[in-house]
């Protein structure tokens, strides 16, 4: 009978660097395999990319009617060109933070039992799904880059100039973190299926709320006077914050704090995910596996 140590010795002595390399290789392989998988669905991708641009057109028409094309009018600090820019940037942020199918995928795998693959194999489910999602996004950006550039070019007259580089850096950092927050929130909602097998209505409520509370529907400045809690919830980082940073709505000296809060949310959500997963698996394995 071989012992655990023999298995290690197959790949040489166990050292920290070997362990790190092995883990990185696995992440890379998941990423690579998932990219290959995503490329299978060409038609689905092209279609979903096009669909994503439809709402922006209606939003621009709507706000041009509200502002009656009068660029001197402002609403909570937004004039018409800024409003158009806001929606374009929110669209970009949502391209990072939206996770179509993540919650339903996790919930489905718990309901149909395929989640046990992650319990039997020496893999971490969240890590696996994260790199899967990174692959999904990378392929999406490659395909959507052209249409995105076209829309930005068509609306170029409304866009403000390029901001100072620290603002741009903060914008990029915020965008990347919006990906992590979007992933972690949706994963957490999917994990609720360990307790309630049917979570589709919960996911629907989340979609509605996040559309509203993330600033995807209207800038949060218009909302916070009615619902002040939007300023302290993590949803704002899914859409509003990156756009607000780029438009200079957040003062430069406040940017580090804003980014720190965003990073803290990532850590908090990560901890919540880990707890939910470990408790969920415990519950799962005491209810039948």
């Amino acid at each position: 009978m071989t012992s655990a140590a023999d298995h290690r010795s197959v790949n040489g002595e166990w050292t920290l660097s070997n362990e790190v390399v092995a883990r990185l290789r696995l992440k890379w392989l998941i990423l690579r395999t998932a990219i290959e998988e995503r490329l299978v669905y060409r038609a689905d991708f092209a279609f979903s990319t096009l669909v994503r641009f439809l709402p922006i057109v209606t939003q621009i028409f709507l706000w041009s009617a509200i502002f009656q094309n009068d660029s001197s009018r402002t609403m909570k600090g937004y004039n018409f060109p800024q409003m158009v820019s806001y929606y374009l940037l929110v669209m970009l942020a949502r391209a990072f933070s939206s996770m179509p199918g993540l919650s339903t995928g996790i919930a489905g795998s718990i309901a149909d039992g395929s989640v046990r693959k992650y319990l039997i194999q020496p893999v971490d489910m969240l890590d696996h799904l994260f790199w899967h999602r990174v692959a999904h996004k990378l392929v999406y950006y490659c395909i959507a880059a052209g249409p995105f550039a076209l829309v930005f070019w068509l609306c170029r007259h409304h866009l403000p100039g390029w901001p100072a580089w620290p603002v741009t850096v903060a914008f990029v950092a915020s965008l990347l973190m919006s990906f992590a927050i979007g992933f972690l929130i949706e994963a957490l909602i999917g994990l609720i299926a360990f307790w309630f097998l049917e979570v589709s209505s919960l996911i629907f409520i989340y979609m509605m709320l996040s559309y509203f509370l993330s600033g995807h529907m209207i800038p949060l400045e218009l909302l916070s006077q009615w619902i002040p809690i939007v300023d302290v919830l993590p949803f704002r980082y899914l859409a509003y914050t990156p756009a607000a940073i780029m438009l200079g709505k957040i003062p430069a000296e406040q940017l580090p704090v804003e980014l720190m809060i965003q990073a803290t949310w990532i850590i908090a959500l990560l901890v919540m995910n880990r707890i939910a997963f470990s408790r969920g698996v415990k519950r799962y394995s005491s209810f039948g596996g």
Partner: protein
Amino acid sequence: MSAKSITIPGMAAIEVKELCREYRVFRKGEGLLASVRGLFHREHTIISAVRNISFTIEEGEMVAFLGPNGAGKTTTLKLLSGLVVPSSGTATVLGHIPWNREDAFRRRFSLVTGQKEQLWWDLPAQESFRLHKEIYRISSDDYQRRIDELTELLEVRQLMAQPVRQLSLGERMRMELIAALLHRPDVLFLDEPTIGLDVVSQRRVQEFLRHYQREQRITVILTSHYMKDVEALCSRAIVINKGTVIHDGPLAAIIDRFSRHKIIELQFSDNGFPEGLERFGRIVDTRPPRVRIQVEKQRVSECLATILSRHSVDDISVMERPLEDVIAELFSADDAARRQDVSV
């Protein structure tokens, strides 16, 4: 194929002691009113899926788990793979407690089910295998050698580049087996591996498993409803019914122990067979001048003597009943009372 590296003599691969697993199941009464009542107050019943089972499996053994649906076979496999935590009792697999799910344990076993869920559906199987190489940290040399070996044995080399969803059920199952064996597990749990396969695929999987197990000396537990699988692969069987072990021993002993009948095959001299044979037992097959009668064990010699004294018979043979029939009878509901009496 190389033999297993280090062995520790006398150490059991799998040890199960007084393992129990109970489930709480929601019980809903009949009708709309009961459904509405269920919104406020739910009644639960406790179901024992596995009751106090104990057994030991030595390294390199291939053991069949037999039992009707709901007997507790799959629950036992889930317990041994660490998917389910027991209500009480202990189990070790390769010295590990399965439900602790340590990586060191998970790298050393595989579970193959008829659900076939290890492969990426839209990609060729080789992509999934490459991912397994990293998950199980298989060195490139080992990986290449094992892929060559396994694809050759299972005759799927030319299918490696074809998306899994385009493979037939039998081909997919063979790919699943490769995925399960790439990291060369010491213990393999097979839960209905040939379910839904045609006879050719079934036989190919059977032959492969027999060959591979003998070469690698891995420990295997197999559950299957196909007695042909079981007879071809296992010499020992653990029979589970209603969550308890009712037999643990050689497969052949099941017939001795549980079958109350034997089959007498007679070939009569004239081109037909006499009337009234029913009084000896149930006639199971008639192909004149041959006839097969199922006779109670203790009446075999008496029946033979009577028949021979009255009729002219060319040929006689006395046979055991097919394992499949014995198992079917053993699990049938009307046999339940007798089973309680002989249970250990």
